[in-house]
């Protein structure tokens, strides 16, 4: 049996493989990361737009209800009856006045506060709860809730800093760039079951080095043949990042399309309308991948806007939830383009399907490598912003935030 190698203290460019493999590591993460001082994406405000609307989700293995009360305020609480621990809400979402646990009919309001206990006073004077039983001493754990641009985040910890401080100004600016001033509408929801540890996906999202090497769709069809500028932003904490690329000013729109037609590639799209997107932000940025530690992603790939939420289901199993977005302000032509460009992403995505299997390749490839370290030295050893994407700086940033959160 190889011994688990020590993680060199403070190192961000070396990662021991046991961190993807051990039950005790996942248990620690559930406490220190998922129930710790981090903000976790819960849902979109648009998904619970009306009083009484609710959604259920997970923060790590913590089942959560997110609800809007009669006054319009948002609440989130553990989806666990304070009596015997059963799920309080069983559906993905809906509209309700209150929540009643099916097991013994304990009833909760939209804030997760216990309001009623069945047969509290017994039947015909017999049984019932003790006289000193107090409803307000029993309720599932409540999460703090904060929103930005219609994204709802929650945290169980009182130590989590305010959401915008946690994100950092550069991340806030780029969330606003994509979502601000518009009304998101859900175009579809899909779940991709990844055969790997959750961190292999959150690393992958931050790995700007692999994009043009693993995902060959754009290269094969020579869509990226124009010199693209781009860069990488890593937040102060390390855990949040933005990777972006832009076509050079002047090469936009029709000129850019003409360049594709003049491509020397053997391969052309038979229906190039897939890539005839519209200028949505006025800045020529065609790709912006944004992550928030630990498990949130906001994606703009051309006109395909989506949020991704990562939920571990075991040491080597992860659910990746995709929510594709349009906006109420979309013209019919713009909406059509978004639907077409959904082909780029998701479980069947031209530029993302590889991410569904590559984590599994690492999980299987490193199965016997508990005494080995993965190497993350592209672009140096630091976790800093850069004007190139040929770097692993934001992956190192993830490990910086991870080591801070877990104490590993």
């Amino acid at each position, binding site marked *: 049996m190889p011994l688990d190698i020590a993680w060199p203290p403070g190192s961000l460019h070396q990662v021991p493989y046991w961190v993807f493999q051990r039950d005790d590591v996942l248990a620690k993460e559930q406490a220190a990361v998922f129930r710790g001082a981090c903000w976790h994406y819960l849902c979109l405000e648009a998904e619970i737009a009306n009083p009484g609307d609710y959604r259920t989700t997970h923060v790590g293995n913590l089942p959560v209800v997110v609800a809007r009360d009669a006054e319009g305020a948002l609440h989130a609480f553990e989806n666990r009856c304070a009596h015997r621990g059963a799920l309080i809400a069983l559906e993905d979402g809906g509209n309700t006045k209150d929540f009643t646990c099916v097991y013994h009919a304990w009833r909760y309001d939209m804030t997760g506060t216990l309001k009623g206990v069945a047969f509290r006073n017994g039947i015909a004077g017999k049984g019932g709860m003790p006289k000193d039983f107090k409803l307000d001493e029993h309720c599932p754990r409540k999460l703090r809730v904060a929103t930005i641009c219609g994204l709802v985040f929650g945290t169980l910890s009182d130590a989590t800093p305010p959401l915008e401080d946690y994100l950092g100004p550069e991340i806030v600016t780029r969330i606003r760039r994509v979502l601000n001033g518009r009304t998101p509408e859900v175009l579809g929801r*899909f779940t*991709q079951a990844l055969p790997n540890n959750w961190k292999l996906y959150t690393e992958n999202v931050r790995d700007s080095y692999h994009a043009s090497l693993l995902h060959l769709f754009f290269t094969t069809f020579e869509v990226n043949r124009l010199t693209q500028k781009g860069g990488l932003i890593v937040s102060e904490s390390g855990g949040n990042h933005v990777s972006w690329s832009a076509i050079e000013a002047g090469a936009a729109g029709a000129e850019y399309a003409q360049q594709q037609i003049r491509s020397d590639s053997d*391969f052309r799209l038979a229906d190039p309308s897939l890539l005839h997107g519209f200028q949505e932000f006025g800045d020529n940025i065609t790709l912006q991948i944004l992550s928030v530690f630990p498990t949130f992603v906001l994606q703009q790939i051309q006109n395909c806007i989506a949020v991704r939420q990562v939920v571990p289901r075991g040491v080597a199993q992860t659910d990746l939830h995709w929510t594709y977005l349009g906006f109420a302000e979309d013209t019919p032509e713009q909406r059509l383009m978004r639907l077409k460009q959904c082909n780029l992403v998701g479980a069947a995505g031209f530029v993302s399907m590889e991410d569904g299997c590559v984590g599994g390749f690492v999980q299987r490839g490193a199965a016997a490598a508990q005494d080995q370290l993965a190497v993350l030295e592209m672009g140096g050893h630091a976790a800093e912003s850069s004007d190139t994407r040929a770097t692993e700086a934001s992956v190192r940033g993830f490990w910086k935030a991870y080591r801070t959160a877990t104490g590993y």
Partner: protein
Amino acid sequence: MLNEIHGFQAAYARCIDDDRLEGWPEYFLPNAHYRVTTVDNHRRGLPAGLIWANSRAMLVDRITALREANIYERHSYRHLLGLPFVEPQADGTARAETPFMVARIMRDGGTELFVTGRYLDVFARDEAGALKLLERVVVCDSSRIDTLLAIPL
């Protein structure tokens, strides 16, 4: 018509399972709509798809991408189709609903149930009178796709 649709469905599944994917778009009309979605999205009327095409050319592009660009572990499907429920329409087209199960056979020899669902089809005839798909909405019963969806359903 019913016999013709039986034969069409059998040939369609055989085309994919035999890895003759270049022939797959030929089952569609040039202006066909093809979409892979889930029963949850379908029930809610959400329009996005895992795969979404409004032209046969987009299906051609998907096969070109699978062959030339996309990277995934070698695997194949085995489609088992149920009996189609066919409703001829007054305009000469036909609507059909056909249940399916698809097993996925991986490179290492393992076989597992990959997806079950229904084809919601609109059949029409091309200029030569051949039966083709004007629309195929593939409604998967589960909302979860394991690993990836490369080969079409």
